[in-house]
């Protein structure tokens, strides 16, 4: 498939935004049960705003993908059958929940405002945050299912697609959260930085496993469609002589990556290094030294890696329609 940069940015930006929200909520719930010291409200407000900005940037990128962005509202209508429609509903829903979550932190509200005294400081934000977390996971699933539900793009049609979208997005979000903590919390409690650093590394390792498994699976796929089944002639030697078009068509532009061979060959080692080992080293260095610079570089490196990863995700997928577009006469 042709990797469209609009979709690459959409999926990686919202992935990081969603991961950051998960990190914030992890900190808040750990603080609620007293595992780590509670963080200042400014931390959640800043984190919430950054997460929101990432989601909005992703949404903006997605509009660039559409032929008729002014009609985009229509795409919420078929949620019963279309994962794309579900994503279109869940993304704004998550934005609203995240905005509420951030606002309640900013205003310092708790359930006291509706007359319930639970004795917890953060009860309201914990509840709103829980819904936001649910929406986050639902959004990860929807985004990934857009690809995984197309059964004849065999590289995508796997539960690994859903697992990897979730893990890769979360990994970049936790890496970002680690850097943010050092930057925003004036005297960061070592506990929180370590907590985020720990999860960032764990999730990155899990994501590496998931991605390697999908690469392994894809390397062994046997295409179910062949030129024989495509034109219905059972003969061992069939070659295309003409595809009915001399100068390319939508079919040759949209379904082939059309990149030089060396790009396709080098991008995989590149993303494997940028997304996984390099950020892990940087996170560990950053957490032990408490350096914001190192941690934010870790995030940037991992994010660049994810862009390459997403490019490869698309480029590697072979659409069966390509069988009909092998040769221009």
């Amino acid at each position, binding site marked *: 498939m042709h990797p469209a940069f609009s979709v690459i940015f959409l999926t990686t930006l919202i992935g990081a935004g969603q991961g950051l929200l998960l990190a914030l909520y992890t900190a808040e719930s750990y603080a609620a049960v007293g595992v780590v010291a509670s963080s200042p409200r400014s931390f959640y407000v800043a984190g919430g705003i950054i997460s929101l900005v990432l989601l909005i940037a992703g949404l903006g990128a997605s509009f660039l993908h559409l032929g008729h962005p002014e009609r985009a509202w229509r795409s919420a*209508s078929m949620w019963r059958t279309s994962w794309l429609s579900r994503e279109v509903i869940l993304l704004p829903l998550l934005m609203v929940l995240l905005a509420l979550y951030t606002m309640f932190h900013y205003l310092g509200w708790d359930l006291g405002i509706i007359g319930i005294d639970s004795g917890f400081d953060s009860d309201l934000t914990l509840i709103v945050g829980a819904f936001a977390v649910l929406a986050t996971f639902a959004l990860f699933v929807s985004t990934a299912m857009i690809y995984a539900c*197309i059964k004849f793009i065999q590289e995508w049609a796997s539960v690994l697609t859903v697992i990897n979208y979730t893990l890769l997005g979360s990994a970049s979000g936790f890496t970002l959260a680690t850097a943010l903590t050092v930057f925003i919390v004036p005297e960061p409690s070592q506990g929180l930085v370590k907590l985020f650093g720990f999860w960032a590394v764990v999730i990155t390792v899990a994501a590496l496993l998931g991605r390697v498994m999908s690469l392994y699976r894809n390397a062994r796929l046997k295409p179910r469609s062949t030129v024989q089944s495509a034109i219905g002639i059972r003969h061992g030697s069939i070659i295309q002589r003409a595809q009915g078009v001399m100068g390319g068509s939508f079919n040759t532009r949209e379904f082939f990556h059309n990149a030089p061979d060396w790009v396709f060959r080098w991008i995989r080692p590149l993303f494997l290094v940028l997304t996984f080992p390099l950020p892990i080293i940087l996170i560990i260095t950053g957490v032990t030294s408490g350096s914001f610079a190192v941690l934010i570089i870790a995030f940037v490196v991992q994010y660049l890696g994810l862009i390459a990863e997403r490019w490869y995700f698309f480029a590697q997928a072979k659409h*069966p329609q390509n069988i009909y577009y092998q040769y221009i006469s």
Partner: protein
Amino acid sequence: MTQLALVIDLNVCVGCHACVTSCKEWNTSGIAGYLSDDNPYGAEPTGTFFNRVQTFEVGQYPDTQTVHFPKSCLHCEEPPCVPVCPTGASYKRPEDGIVLVDYDKCIGCKYCSWACPYGARELDEHQKVMKKCTLCVDRIYDESIPKTERKPACVNACPTSARLFGDVHDSESEVSRAIREQGGYALMPEWGTKPANHYLPRRRIEVTIHDDELVRVDNPLKKEIDVGPSGPVREQTLDDITSW
């Protein structure tokens, strides 16, 4: 329930592209607006087509056969392209099974084209909406057109009658009979899309002629006589004036 479809006879198609040009002509002039055509006479011609004729070579030289293969939307009975559409712009008509795109609703997200294994959908580069074969829905029901021509433009244009059109759910229709009696098959059956369009296979036409079919065995005089009209023929016959 009706399911309109094309049946394309690969044994007859000569790859003349008449269906391609007549399709383009009819559909670029319709109410839905033109079909893009960029650089039609330049070095890199490109544009939107509902129907294309491709050519495949089967076998190895010198034992090769050239197969011309017209390809358009197959109006699948289980169309994977329809449920994925987020706007409902892509739909399958319950009354005749035609799969259509509502160009006023389509947002040009291209998702449906990813979900068609046959590459039958093309995004129009200028109108930015998804286009595909409509089975000439604006023609086959038009009562101002003579009844015999109320067929898709490609079917009318085909000089070899390689394209049949009709209801594949009516077991007595011309198309159903052709599928049944001439080994009609569907493309990529492995994905369960149940294409409504079918293809008729290449068939080797062989006639075996035995000697006794050339010479009458029950001819007691062992002599072939002219069994023409009895009595002398005075007028010219058609054979006398026709020279091939």
